[in-house]
């Protein structure tokens, strides 16, 4: 499972962007969704998640704002920007292309036109 984990981890940013496409969210909720969707088979470390948040925010793909909860333990919410939506769509296309190419290479099939 560890090779798969590395591959998934490499796509952390796209995973986060696609979650934010449907609605704003925050760190723990995103991680919880990932766990649910993969049937508890995959869980991101907080460190991985937060460094991805930082990169996405630096690239202006997402924006953040603080929640209303008690001071000292407020939630940090993230929302996707227009630039982020474009990047997300592109990343999904790239992933499809990579998936197809690797499939043809490892299954010895003719390249699908």
């Amino acid at each position, binding site marked *: 499972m560890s090779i798969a984990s590395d591959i998934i981890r490499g796509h952390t940013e796209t995973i986060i962007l696609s979650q934010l496409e449907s609605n704003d969210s925050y760190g*723990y909720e995103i991680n919880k969704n990932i766990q649910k969707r993969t049937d508890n088979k995959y*869980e991101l470390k907080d460190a991985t998640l*937060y460094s991805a948040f930082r990169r996405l925010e630096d690239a202006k793909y997402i924006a953040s704002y603080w929640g209303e909860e008690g001071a000292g333990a407020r939630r940090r919410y993230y929302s996707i920007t227009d630039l982020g939506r474009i990047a997300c769509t592109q990343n999904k296309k790239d992933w499809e292309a990579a998936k197809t190419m690797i499939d043809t290479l490892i299954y010895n099939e003719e390249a699908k036109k």
Partner: protein
Amino acid sequence: MKTKIRNYVDELFFGKPAHNKMKDIKEELISNLNEKYDDLIAGGYNGDEAFYKVIAGIGDADELLGMPRKKIIPEPEPLPKKELRSFIISTLWLGTTILFFMVSFLLDNWETSWTIFLLGSIANSYILLKWTAAEINLPAPIDLRKQGSHEMRASETEAHERKLHKLRKKQMGLISSILWQGIVVIYFVFSMTFPFTFSFSWIIFLAGAIVQNYISLTYRTKKD
């Protein structure tokens, strides 16, 4: 238990270089950890189990703070084991002795060939210098998972600082010894080859003293 989580995060960030976003990261992390903790308790875990699951999910503290995990400056080679180090030094002196006899016999020169031993000594000092640099770059022996008090952590850092200070002094000493041995070699080889220069070739020792002062000055200002 929420205070235990907050304390753990404070402990994790203790001693890290100051970061203008550190407060924000801490707050976001604590809020997420608290919620995860509540979910685990609701899911049937007891307090301790939930706590350990929560902190186990944090991952690498440096990555969390966005600090590069590898140094950008290339590190000097790691310190070789004790036996390997003694072996290297003995080989050096064996080689120097062999070289001495070879040169003396082949060139039939016994008056200046002894300077080869000075060269060997300079090589020895240089190797020790490299090893001291490697020792200085060894990671500090602070265990992040220790839930010790801040005072204990402070005294460990202090001891480490003292050790570093001693190593830097050793470095300075080695550089000085290389300088002076080098000057002696140059002085003798030069003077023996050009015997008429003996009356003023001692000036090189004055030059050495100037360089030595410059080195001490650079070391002292670097320390500050």
